[in-house]
């Protein structure tokens, strides 16, 4: 099927500038195909912004970038009405949010007030400024990056707002070989940003969406999914289990993943692949459990068997 080729090409295209991170690139694309917002969390300088730019390029979306700082205000994102003295009226100057893909860099450096303005727009797909509701373009994606919360000068996102992101990715250090290649390339191509070619147009995006809706999820698989979800709600290590929205997100991503691998049905491996990205930021460890969300997901996978035994 040609969709598969298109997707593989997009992955390869992004891989040109983000070396050795194919898994994360595929997950990020999966998230955008599932029409979800993406949160990338890692230390500074790991390639978060690079990935965001590259995704915008290959999807051929109009994009804007906002660098979040502690003094950023909601109006700086949403837009503002300015008095025009010529015709004695207010005219609205749209903010950077009126774009198809918004890169919200270091979202946890700004105050909760600004964060919530953005997150509300993410949930509703529209913005209300001065009593007037304005629709955001379609598709509308947010790729937010954030620093690990224990860094100084951050305002951690509350769980309710973390839940609005379909996936959370961590990039991690590159492999030695990939890093070597990057270092070599840096030497020759100076600081210019590499312009990537657009691989997926909006029709193909819609086609992927339609294909996802037709993916078959068998009883066995739903059973496995439900047992995973039930485990997070019942087990002592979890303070908060997966919500029904979390379960829906999990199924949605799993189906998208199956489409990306050219299958009309879902297999447990699909679920296992997307599970860490979809679930880890929605899970909270109970008071005396030392691990973070990622450790919880590993625990979850160990303790829930694919086959009911």
């Amino acid at each position: 099927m040609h969709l598969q080729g298109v997707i593989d090409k997009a992955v390869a295209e992004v891989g040109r500038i983000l070396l050795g991170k194919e898994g994360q690139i595929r997950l990020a694309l999966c998230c955008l195909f599932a029409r979800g917002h993406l949160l990338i969390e890692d230390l500074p300088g790991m390639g978060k912004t690079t990935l965001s730019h590259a995704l915008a390029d290959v999807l051929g979306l109009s994009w804007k970038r906002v660098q979040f700082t502690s003094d950023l205000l909601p109006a700086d994102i949403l837009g503002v009405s300015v008095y025009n003295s010529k015709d004695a009226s207010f005219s609205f100057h749209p903010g950077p949010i009126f774009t198809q893909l918004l890169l919200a860099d270091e979202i946890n450096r700004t105050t909760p007030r600004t964060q919530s303005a953005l997150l509300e727009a993410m949930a509703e797909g529209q913005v209300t400024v001065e009593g007037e509701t304005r629709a955001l373009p379609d598709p509308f994606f947010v790729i937010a990056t954030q620093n690990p919360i224990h860094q100084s000068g951050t305002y951690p996102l509350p769980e309710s707002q973390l839940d609005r992101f379909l996936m959370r990715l961590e990039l991690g250090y590159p492999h030695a070989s990939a890093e070597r290649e990057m270092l070599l390339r840096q030497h020759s191509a100076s600081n210019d940003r590499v312009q990537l070619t657009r691989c997926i147009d909006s029709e193909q995006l819609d086609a992927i969406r339609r294909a996802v809706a037709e993916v078959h999820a068998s009883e066995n698989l739903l059973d496995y999914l439900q047992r995973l979800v039930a485990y997070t709600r019942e087990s002592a290590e979890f303070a908060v289990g997966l919500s029904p929205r979390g379960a829906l997100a999990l199924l949605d991503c799993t189906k998208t993943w199956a489409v990306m691998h050219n299958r009309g049905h879902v297999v447990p491996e699909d679920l296992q692949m997307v599970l860490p990205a979809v679930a880890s930021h929605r899970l909270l460890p109970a008071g005396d459990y030392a691990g973070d969300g990622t450790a919880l997901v590993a625990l979850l996978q160990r303790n829930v068997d694919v086959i009911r035994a």
Partner: protein
Amino acid sequence: MKLLHQVPRNALVWIIIAQFTLVAPHAGRVPTWILLLYLFAALWRIQVYRGQWSFPGRWVKAVMMLSGFAGIYFSYSSLIGLEPTVALLLTAFALKLIETVARKDVYVLIFLAYFVCITEFLFTQDLLIVGYSLLNVIVITTALVALHQPGEHQFNRRTIRLAGVMVLQAVPLMLVLFFLFPRIGPLWTVPVKSHAAKTGISDFMKPGDIANLSQSADVAFRVQFEGEIPDKSQLYWRGLVFSKLEEGAWTNLGYFDIPAKQRRTVIVDTIGDPLRYSIIMEPTQQNWLFGLRHAVPDRPGILVAPDFRLYSLVVIEDDFRYSVESWPEAPLETKLSSWRREVELRLPAGDNPRTRELANAMRLEAGSDREFVDAALERFNVEPFVYTLKPPLLPDSNPMDAFLFDTLRGFCEHYAYAFVVMMRAAGVPARVVAGYQGGEINPVNRTVVVHQFDAHAWAEVWLPGEGWVRVDPTASVAPERIEMGLEDAVAEEGTFLAESPLSPLRYRSIRWLNQLRLRYDALTYRWQSWVVGFDGKVQFDLLRDVFGEVSAGRFAAALIGAWALVLIPVALSLLRKRDTRPRRPLDREYLRVCDRLEAAGYPRRAGESAAHYATRISQACPAWAAPLEQITALYNTCSYEGLSSGETSEVAKSFYRAARGFRPRRCDSDIATAGPEFDS
């Protein structure tokens, strides 16, 4: 109030239900106002729950408590004794409901409920009551379970099912404790049932007493013979021996009526073959026991009186079991002391002149005492005497003259009375014996069931050389009474159990009903002999049979061992995985393949999917790669692809074929260490 401390609705409902089911069996024993108190308490508590009324204040509670005490004092004219204390407990149980504010109060109420449940056994140990109490325990436990399900506001069948399961799980522990827990003597004694009615034959006899008793279908006692059951006409269960006739009533000799020298047990020559049997008596609140002549008891605490009757040192308040050896052919007291002769000849002076005259005349005609006895019996047979349950009332003075010459209608006690008066008047020592005659043989378990309507009175005369000889004048009047039983003897009259219309004994002609009755009676016998009669002595004997010697250490070992035997399976079943829902056959087959691979040294890792497992094994052991990949692909197709049911069954068939044919042997190469890629 915090939600945590509130009483859940369901727990409240269940404890109120438990209150009513618990008080119900006491209803016949306690005053009516206690039952009304239960209704009142339930009403109050429900109104509190609905927010209509409020909890009682301190003074109201004090007044209610004191009124409770006063009410019991007025109803029983005492606060001490079994019934008043149980009534006090029931009153407290009812009143406690009104002040159950928080969860901790419900705990008190529930533990009180378990205690109230036990009090029923102070009055009866009937099999039906035991079953009912078990139901009560389930209801109380349901309240306890509901107390821990605060979120439930609807009736939930799970609650009662869980309680039932818990009670069932407790049953083996109950049995262990019952059979093995040391039966130490009571640490305190339960006060005597001061208000319980004495049942059975009484220690004095007036004409009419036994006829009244004959209206009762209650069981007096049950007998199990070791050998053959003797003929019914030989079953004369001696209970009381009436030697004294004063003011128209027969009584037995009291302890102080007998001179000190005569009090010792008379030695009897035991000749002939003995009958061995054990008797389980229903409680009578009296101390005399029953046995065929001549009865020798098997244990201390049961004595033989100088007139050869059995009695217990304590009053029979509960089902009482004892074993007896009887020597029917043994002569009793061949030599009569002068005191005894004088006692057994004594008649009130000037009484019944016509009877005395008749007796003296007959004695003169007869050649010996034996012939005189026969002549007297002959007279009862020939004259138109009628055996009836409804004899006419006899005058207080000279009653036997009226009976023998005018009315001629009587019941066994009339005949025995008249016969003994005639004997004594003519100088033959004689006395009345009261007890039971006959009994019903239950074919189910070969026991003899003796009912109250089998109560009987007969006579004993002392003949030179023979000692005391049993003479039953009733047998001369109505032989069918002795041969067949009371029912046939009064069949024409239709008075058999005329006052007990609901007794199942009246419907013996209905076959299945009678079978049911006999079976239940056999069950009751087992219950009484194995459970109610399981006392310290039986327990000791049982343990000695099993362990050889009984010591404290062995007792403890048996108790702990049996306890562990019950609890270890429970613990093991808890250790097993909780989810026991049946797996799909497909999964089961696949897991069998996994088991085989595990046996070959390659277990599936926790949470590993079929495809990952196959990949890992194939890397480790390429020889298996092809069949395993086929199996996995087929399994995944069946499990996850949206095939139509027909296609699925086709694929499933080939899966089963491939899976069953796959027999891995040990593989030499090392297992691959690469696991499934979980992290992104």
